């Protein structure tokens, strides 16, 4: 098997069992994942809780290796953690002993080529981080510590940290799950604008169907045990999308359709046709 050149992310028949004994029992966390993502595409993965969404994320970042099949990102086989990706989780996981600015700068202390000249170019990088914080509405909070910020502000900072090293791929694992509805919609727009501006790939894992339809180009529905992709839905709503779009019949129709798939799975277990 080889990488297909036109796809940025390419999963070819990927299976994963968490350890040897589960593999021997044929007990897989995710099964037969096939996924092709174009350059710059924003995809969302939705599904009931415990369906292996986070496992899928670990595979994409290279934190876990597939038991069977192959994964290619940007034409390269994934054998270990990728330096071209940035990641944000449901909890902001900012380091409490660092200021917001220093938290955002953290990836530059790790990833080459920034790491080599971090000390020399610190002022330049700081300016860049402050710019980025400003675009997400955190101007003036650079020197505050994470615990002095609200949950929504921490999550913004966490997204800045995922983007500071200009990754080609942004991985978001239910990043807005713990926020209130208003803050969540605000951050949707922030993410939409960042994506429009910088054209990186996004893989968003979420259980919020409205969120997935509003933000993504393609939504994949995952089933629970075994974790499989059962539905692929292209979202052809025109961009740029305004929050108003979420109140249109087209939008509601798509959300409803996805809801139907998930509802069916919850009723019948995993036995639904593709």
């Amino acid at each position, binding site marked *: 098997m080889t990488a297909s050149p036109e796809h940025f992310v390419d999963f070819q028949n990927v299976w994963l069992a968490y350890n040897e004994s589960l593999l021997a029992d044929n007990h897989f966390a995710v099964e037969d994942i096939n996924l092709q993502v174009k350059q710059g595409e924003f995809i969302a993965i939705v599904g009931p809780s415990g369906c292996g969404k986070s496992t899928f994320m670990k595979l994409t970042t290279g934190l876990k290796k597939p038991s069977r099949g192959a994964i290619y990102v940007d034409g390269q086989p994934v054998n270990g953690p990728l330096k071209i990706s940035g*990641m944000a*989780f449901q909890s902001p996981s900012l380091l409490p*002993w660092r200021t917001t600015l220093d938290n955002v700068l953290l*990836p530059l202390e790790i990833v080459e080529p920034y790491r080599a000249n971090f000390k020399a170019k610190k002022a330049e990088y700081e300016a860049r981080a402050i710019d980025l914080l400003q675009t997400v509405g955190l101007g003036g909070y650079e020197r505050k510590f994470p615990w002095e910020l609200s949950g929504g502000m921490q999550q913004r900072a966490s997204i800045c940290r995922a983007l500071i090293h200009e990754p080609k791929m942004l991985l978001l694992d239910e990043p807005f799950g713990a926020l209130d509805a208003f803050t969540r919609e605000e951050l949707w727009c922030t993410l939409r604008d960042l994506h429009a501006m910088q054209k990186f790939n996004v893989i968003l894992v979420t259980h919020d169907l409205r969120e997935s339809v509003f933000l993504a180009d393609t939504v994949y529905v995952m089933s629970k045990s075994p974790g499989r992709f059962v539905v692929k839905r292209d979202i052809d709503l025109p961009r740029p999308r305004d929050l108003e779009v979420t109140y249109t019949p087209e939008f509601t129709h798509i959300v409803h359709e996805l809801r139907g798939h998930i509802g069916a799975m919850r009723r019948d277990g995993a036995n639904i046709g593709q």
Partner: protein
Amino acid sequence: MNQKQLETWAPWGLLVATLLIWQAACSLFNVSEFVFPSPLRIWEQMVEYRDVIAGHAWRTFWVTMVGFGIAIVVGVLLGFVIGSSRLAYAAVYPLMTGFNALPKAAFVPILVVWFGIGVGPAILTAFLISFFPIMVNIATGLATLEPELEDVLRVLGAKRWDVLVKVGLPRSMPYFYGSLKVAITLAFVGTTVSEMTAANEGIGYLLISAGSAMQMGLAFAGLVVVGAMAMIMYELFSLIEKHTTGWAHRGSQNH
């Protein structure tokens, strides 16, 4: 007087009250100073023998600090190894727990055979008794690292060393300073115990010689001095802790 001031003065108030009751009890029941000296008597002795006490106290102080210094170095290194490797944790921890369960005073005669009477046994006893809490705390701080914090760095391709230096060590600093406060008081215990049998100098030696000469006031003065030294060092480390790892104590600072 508001709540905060009250809290600041409360320990001093309690100290004065204790001394007054102690003094009153000694005077009232006419307790012999060979049995239980009054605070006034202890104070008199302290002033009378101030040069002698100061000499012994200085010896105990520097011996303790040397032992404590070694304990920090060894404790941090061992804790680092145990906390960052599961294999090392599994291998070393049970042995260390067994070792820590041994009474350290029992080592003194052995140390005397190896190093003779003097500073050697005292430094080593202080070290042996105080490195364990430091090691355990550093190891715990490293071993209980939240997987999310680790993943943040690992997705960037960070090496184990990066994760340890950027996340593991800063995160274990509150544990480290917490352990120093425990360890420094233990180190004074170690030195004093060792000096009681294996030295011709130091507060431990002073206690034994004053006791055998029935100078109870002087013996108590020695106790007071060693207690005061341990307390001052404890407060010093708590101050350093507050200033360096304030982020870990934000709950108590009304943020």
